[in-house]
């Protein structure tokens, strides 16, 4: 074990509004977070907003498999673009690319191009646990992440509020997981709001 990983904190910070929804108010290193949303209904915004606090505080993040990341939206969410590596089109090698990045970043956002194979997901989650990274897997109900996650954010409803332009989107998110989170709670959050940020309703 390298001394540097021992010196690291056991968690990665999580911003508002998510902080108050998860046990410990932070993301545990080595854990896997799954974000599931129907296509086009806020899953990507939600997953990116999970990166923002840690990124702003100096942690590195990588985004694998998001073909055309909305860089401006990320900046609006509070992500520090100077510390984000993108692998937009990993083709068939999304799991291998993700594994390559594990040692270099604290947060790893992955969107598998189709349904993730059980074996690939298992191996990736094992390595994440070993390396102390946080894995955020973005999936759809049609192609769910094949394994249970430590934290599970499920978007059940998305509604836009618009005036003369798009103002805000209210997402109904079901948060569940292992241990303390097992109970499962439902929250309405605004992602993005009028300034492009995530906030509590």
């Amino acid at each position, binding site marked *: 074990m390298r001394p*540097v990983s021992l010196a690291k904190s056991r968690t990665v910070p999580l911003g508002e509004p998510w902080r108050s929804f998860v046990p410990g108010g932070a993301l545990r290193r080595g854990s896997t977070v799954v974000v599931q949303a*129907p*296509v*086009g*209904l*806020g*899953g*990507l*915004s939600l997953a*990116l907003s999970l990166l923002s606090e840690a990124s702003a505080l*100096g*942690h*590195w993040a*990588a985004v694998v498999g*998001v*073909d*055309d*990341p*909305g*860089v*401006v*939206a*990320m*900046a*609006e969410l509070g992500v520090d*673009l*100077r*510390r*984000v*590596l*993108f*692998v*937009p*089109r*990993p*083709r068939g*090698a999304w799991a*291998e*690319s993700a594994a*390559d*990045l*594990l*040692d*270099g*970043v*604290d947060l790893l956002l992955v969107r598998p191009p189709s349904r993730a194979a059980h074996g690939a997901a298992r191996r990736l989650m094992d390595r994440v646990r070993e390396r102390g990274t946080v894995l955020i897997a973005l999936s759809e109900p049609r192609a769910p992440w094949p394994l249970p996650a430590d934290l599970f954010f499920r978007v059940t409803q*998305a*509604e*836009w509020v*618009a005036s*003369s*332009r*798009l103002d*805000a*989107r209210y997402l109904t998110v079901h948060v569940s997981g292992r241990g303390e989170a097992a109970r499962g709670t439902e929250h309405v959050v605004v992602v*993005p*709001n*009028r*300034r*492009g940020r995530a906030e509590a309703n």
Partner: protein
Amino acid sequence: MEQLLAVWVESLALEQPDGSTLRNTLSVLDALDALCPFSEVVRLGLYALPLRGPSRFFGGDEAVMRLVRECVLEVVGIEPKLGVAEGLFCAELAAQRELVVPLGSSDAFRRAQPLDVLGRKDLTTTCQRLGLHTVGAFADVDPARVGERFNRHALYLHRVARGELSEMEGQRDPRLARRLALLRGEEEFFEEQQGFFGQRGASDDRADAAAHRVRRRLGAQAVVVASLRGGRGPEDRATLVPWGSPQANVRDVAPWPGQLAAPSPATTLAHPVPLQLRDAVNRPVVLSTRGTLSAEPTTVIFSSPLRREIIWHAGPWPLVERWWSRHRRRAHLQMVLASGEALLVVAESHRWWLVGIYD
């Protein structure tokens, strides 16, 4: 604009190889700091401090200038040239001519300067052929005419000439503050301040190593980094370049007039996808030259047979760009589909393109 006292110390302007220039620069700065805490080194040889506060404290502009002169003389053994004017651009010119420009006269002072103070030979020559000899005459030229003839940098100089910008590009040495901090042994401060740009930490090296591994696996273009630049729509503002390319650290977050307001789409297509908008009777919706829609769009067709119902739309917000070279007329339109998805589309040359998905 703030009245500045510019201090020009010729002997410190050229860096000596023995490092004495930087040490002396620091000593002069410390001495000036004792007079006014807002003193700064603009670049080697040039210092500036706001005049109003110290003037009130020491009893007048002359008193401050006398103190500054003594202070520089004591530290480096030569008298500096002093000048007072509003804004750094005018203050430096005043210092070179050892002038005190009275409050409110800086505009006239700037306008009376010969064109070569803007430091661009081609611009000076061309303007002189057109009969424009002073900064003021150049300032009165319509910006559109300047844009027709010169590049973006000249438009920038034109803004300096008009007094919209108080300092010129290249007047400041952006690396000097950090070098002085290093000399003082305050490196950590800058590491924290600058992060990725300045001193690199262990985590940056680990990220680099990880990026290398992915590149070996997938090729040189596989890992990209992002930054923002000026522009109207989110599709213009995002810059994605392969990791390790030299322009990766460019960052521009200056305000940009007419920018599409937040929130921006979480997916911004690098290659826009053509689509069609249809009205209630299935006629194509087009953008008129006046920037209005020919009819209310009710259906979007991605590629037949994929059709979706539009339940709400806003816009079009027209963008007319580069009016001096080529007509490029675009308009943004936001829409929400019956399925709940929100899209950002652009009309350009009579066609519609999908540029962003709020997913």
